[in-house]
């Protein structure tokens, strides 16, 4: 069964790139959302196996969205990985305080992204190796 990943980022291009990367490399099903709100909706509706969550978004930022997800029993259990430019030490501390275990820095290595995600989630990955 294909894993389903939800990518939440307000940047269109990043959504696309990320989607292509994950699909190509990991073969996962990738859903996208452009805002925190949208992301929550998607999560609720489609119950992804994981969420890649951007932080810097207008309206609701990633962390608030995360809280919402946690609060919602429907989405509580979905593991969340932050995908963000804010990866300073202070930021990381903050994330862990909130309960987010992992964060991946932007820009990300497109080839490595899937692996990083899998590693974080302890998934086995059958990925398409580079030729």
């Amino acid at each position: 069964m294909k894993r389903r990943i939800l990518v939440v980022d307000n940047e269109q291009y990043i959504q696309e790139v990320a989607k292509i990367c994950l699909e190509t490399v990991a073969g996962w099903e990738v859903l996208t959302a452009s805002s925190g709100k949208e992301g929550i909706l998607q999560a609720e509706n489609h119950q992804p196996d994981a969420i890649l969550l951007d932080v810097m978004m207008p309206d609701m930022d990633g962390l608030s969205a995360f809280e919402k997800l946690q609060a919602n029993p429907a989405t509580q259990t979905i593991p969340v990985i932050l995908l963000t430019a804010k990866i300073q030490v202070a930021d990381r501390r903050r994330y862990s305080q909130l309960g987010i275990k992992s964060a991946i820095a932007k820009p990300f290595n497109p080839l490595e992204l899937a692996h990083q995600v899998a590693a974080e989630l302890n998934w086995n990955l059958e990925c398409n190796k580079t030729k």
Partner: protein
Amino acid sequence: MKILVVEDDALIAYTLTNFLTDQNYAVEVANDGKTAWDLVETYEYDLILLDIVLPKLDGISLCKKIRSSGRRVPILLLTGRDSSHDKAIGLDAGADDYVVKPCDEEELVARVRALLRRGGVNSQPILEWGSLRLDPSSCEVTYQQDQLSLTPKEYALLELLMRNNRRVFSCGMILDHLWSYEDTPGEDAVRTHIKGLRMKLKAAGALHDLVETVYGIGYRLKLQENDHNDNHELNHKSKNERTIGKLEEIWQRFIGRIEEQISVIEEAGQNIAHTQGNFNSELLLQATREAHTLAGSLGTFGLPYASELAKKIENFFQTFANLTAAEMINLQPKLQTWVKSLRQEINRKNQQINGPDNSQKELTLSPRENIDNEIAPTVNKTKILVVDDDLKTLELLQVLLTPWGLEIITLNHPEQFWNTWEKIQPDMLILDIEMPSMSGIELCKMIRSHDQGREVPILFLTVHSNVEIVNQVFSVGADDFVSKPIIISELVNRILNRLERVRLVKIMERNRYAKTNQINENNKFIVESYHNLVEVYPEAILIVSQDDLVFVNSAAVRLLGVNSAGELLGRKFIEFVHPQHREEIQENLKSLQTNQRLIPLQEVKFLQAGGGIIYVETVGAFLTYQNQPAAQIVARDITRRKQTELALHKTKNELELRVNQRTVELINVNHQLQSQLDEQKRTQDALRISENRFEAILSIADDAIISIDNSQQITLFNQGAEKIFGYTAEEVLGKKLDLLLPTRFAQEHRNHVATFGKSSAHARRMGERQEIFGCRKDGSEFPAEASISKLDLGRESVYTVILRDITERKQVEKMKDEFVSVVSHELRTPLTSIHGSLGMLTSGLLSTTSEQGKRLLQIATDSTERLVRLINDILDIERIESGKVKMERENCDLRDLINSAINIMQTLADKAGVSLSIHNSNSSSNISSIQLWADPDRIIQTLTNLFSNAIKFSEPGSTVYLMTELQKDQVLVTVQDTGRGIPEDKLESIFERFQQVDSSDSRNHDGTGLGLAICKSIVQQHGGKIWVKSVLGEGSSFYFTLPILTVYDRANLQGLVTDQLDYETSLITDANSPLVLVCDDDAITRQELENLLLQGGYRVLTVASGDQAIAQAVIQHPDVILLDLVMPGINGWETMAGLKKCSDTKDIPIVICSVYKSSQNNLNCQEDTNAESVKFADWLSKPVEETDLLNSLRKVVSEPSRKLKILIIEDDHDLADLLATLFGRHDIETFIAKTGREAIHLSQKVNPDLLILDLILPEADGFTVVDWLKQHDQLFSVPVVVYSAKDLDDSERHRLKLGHTEFFTKGRVTTQEFEQRVMDLLQRITTKQ
């Protein structure tokens, strides 16, 4: 009571006198025995106090003398000798009592009283007279138990009368008894006292005449008591009766004799009658005598008529011998008559006596019996010697006069006179004239010729009363004459008066005597004193009489070097005068004799006996010495003085010398001190300047500079600290540094400071490990950065904290962090896309030709572009906001800008299907030209941004409108779209960075989020505003304003100046600005040049061709022509030639503005033209730089007729020199004033064209200088360039205005700029002139 005190000791005499006068005694003092004896002889004293040891006559001898003279006056001896032997001697000598000195006052007085008592009538101590009581011991007088208060003299008077209460006292006697001879008043005094006494007695109830006046004689006490009175009356009566009785007795006794006498007279009468001229002369003589006697005595017996008859008879008998016969016969019958009458009278008397009353007959008295027992024997009775041959007269007188207190001694036989005289020593003589053996007159003569008898009063008592007898009587020296028959009262009166007179005479004599004595004494005293004085006088006194020394005192003896006066006396005075002065002295002495003036004080030299020379001061006076004219010379030895003077003089010279030396020394020292002082002053000045500088540094420092002492109390708190903390220095000085810290840090801080204090470090940053905060006055905290340094001054340490409020910095840091964070994110975002896409592609997992691959490439490309844009925008906005990019403003037309913007956006608009529309809201026409002073590119950028947004958010087919509206001094530009609008809460925030309304919108991908922020920045930099109005769903309108350029504004805006500089200028473009004619065919060039020139304050006229240039030059007469070379029509050279040809314009300086460089063309032109002097003032190559242009114009337009003068007022040496050099290069005369005072002085002297003024100066700061200059009639409008260290506020700037004043802050303007500005100013000034 009168007491004589005989005492040689003045003090004791004085004391005794006081004692006794206290007791109301009259006291007289004699200082020696002789005087005492004289007094005793003259006066009556009631008591004598006698000292034994006396000069002249000792007390014992005197006492004996007094006693042997018969005087019974009480004598009280007082003396220092106490032995019984002396007492015995004294008492034996006749003293009544003996008192030993020193004697007690009380005892003495009591003894005196006792003695007086004894001498007095009453043995009782208290005197009584009727109801009158007098107590001598208490000096109290009472009348019927009422005490009388009497004056001392009244008391004394009463005592006297009471003691001698039978005696009559005349005024004179009273005076004698009650007053000492020195102060004896007149008789009126006595009468006054009597009156006083009577009044007091009357007041006490006594009868008025208790003190009885006995007229003609004196006063006595009257018997007043009734029984006494009666007694007395009786006694009185009986006394009268007795007297009468006595007379009768005497008559009886002598009746026989009288008979005899009558018979003789009768017989003589018969004889005469019968003999008729042959009379018995002897009988006649006898008859005469008897008649004489009868005449004298009959009257006394109460037969006055008989006396007269007898007198007549006597006369008759006396003159009988001389009568003629006829007269004889005539007078006969008269005689008979007289005789008969006489006889009758006598017979009658006999009958009377022998009448019924026979009781009287039995009385027999002895003539000398003192019948009146009541008559008190008074002290010192007056003795009267009566000489008369008629016994009955004698007896008569005795009887009659004795009651008056007079002692009568009778002498019947004149021959015995002298014996009696010796024995009795009478006070007075009464002589009869007719006496058988010797007439009274002869006797009188005899007495008078006798020594002793010269003074005694002689009274003649005789029947004779004819003138001759009287004359005789007086001629022999008798004092008075009383006729018989005796009238007792008259006789007594005469006697008493005579006695009075005698007494008076005696007194007067005594006075005279005493006076003479006194005078003699005085004289003696004077002489003695003189001698004493002269003797002891320390200076030599010499008396020179007729050239000889007749008197020398002991000082003179010493002075002249001899041993005794004897060696000098008799010698010539001149011998002792130094030959040098002899002549002078002789002259002096002579003139002294002649003029009897003084020889004034002079210094001469004397010769001593031994030959020694002495210096003396002499003064001389004339005097009579021993009745000879003489000179008294006083000579003072001044030898020593002379020596002293010499020594003094020498010393003085020495002293002067030393003083001079010392003065020189002192002057030197003074100089040194002065130079030290100067040095000190200099140091002080330097210190002050340094302090000023320090203060200035402190004051300009924005940072807080705080000094604290060992105990962390604030000792220094600069302006920066004041600003930062909000306290004034006064508020914090002395307070602890803790005040400035938040409380939670206080303790820790203290520890830190303490640790620091102990450490050896000199400086340290505070809060190295942590942030520190400061606490303001209002309680607010702020982050701070500080460092602390330590200065050890021995005991004390001074800590200085420099602290900075880093709130802003922190904010900025925070903002930067945020920005970095945001930007980093923003950058990473496209990077992520790029990296991701390209990464995927290069991995080979996707083919670039696949759909996804192509998509990735596209994404990568777009993201790259975005990244670029982002970076540009970021840089842009940073630069704009930081001010690093200056808006390069210029005169531009909004219309053009809008057009440009539209051009740029057109393509985008077309692509979006949006049309752009522009119009002017003022009019429906196209946008008009609006001049702006703006950076055209930036405005275009703003417009494009707005357009971009508008287009982005507009639906295809819609229109984006741009409108301009000209407002008062700004233009309002509107960009309006009909897009989706902007929510209200974002209307403000969208102008912030990275704010996008909806970032999810893909249309925002292009945007960087910085566009509006940039627009805002640009608009604000131009002094405008930007805002947005929007309705969601309908569209948005973006507005911004830009200020329009007015002529005034144009003048104000100057390129190089930042908006930190403020200045005022007068309208540069007034008629006095130089006119520049710009000739260039290129409009843009023209425009550019015009701009530059306008900026430079010139008036500009532009022409496009050379012809026009010449024409305009003639009309307008510009000050300078800027000439392009390459022009159509006539070229620059030709134009120049034309200008030069015309006389109006040939002098106008020409500046070439050409693309060509000058060096090349110089050569060319010279070749080209016709050797006309094509003199051009300057060459500018295009593009023309403003500075070059202005510089050249400046040079060209006004050749300064004179050198400009700048006064640089700056205390910093280096800076002043720098400025001077700077401006010196411009051929300007510079003057430097280092102090305010110098500035004022120099500015007057130099009259500069410009002042460069530093504000902080010694001796009056810049403000003061300006204030002063304001008063100056020329300099009040001098242009000033204020070049100060600190920024000035408006009031300060106002204060500093003189003429055109500009303000520069050191540090904010570069030297070059400064120079430029000043040159501009000068240029302006000179051109104005």
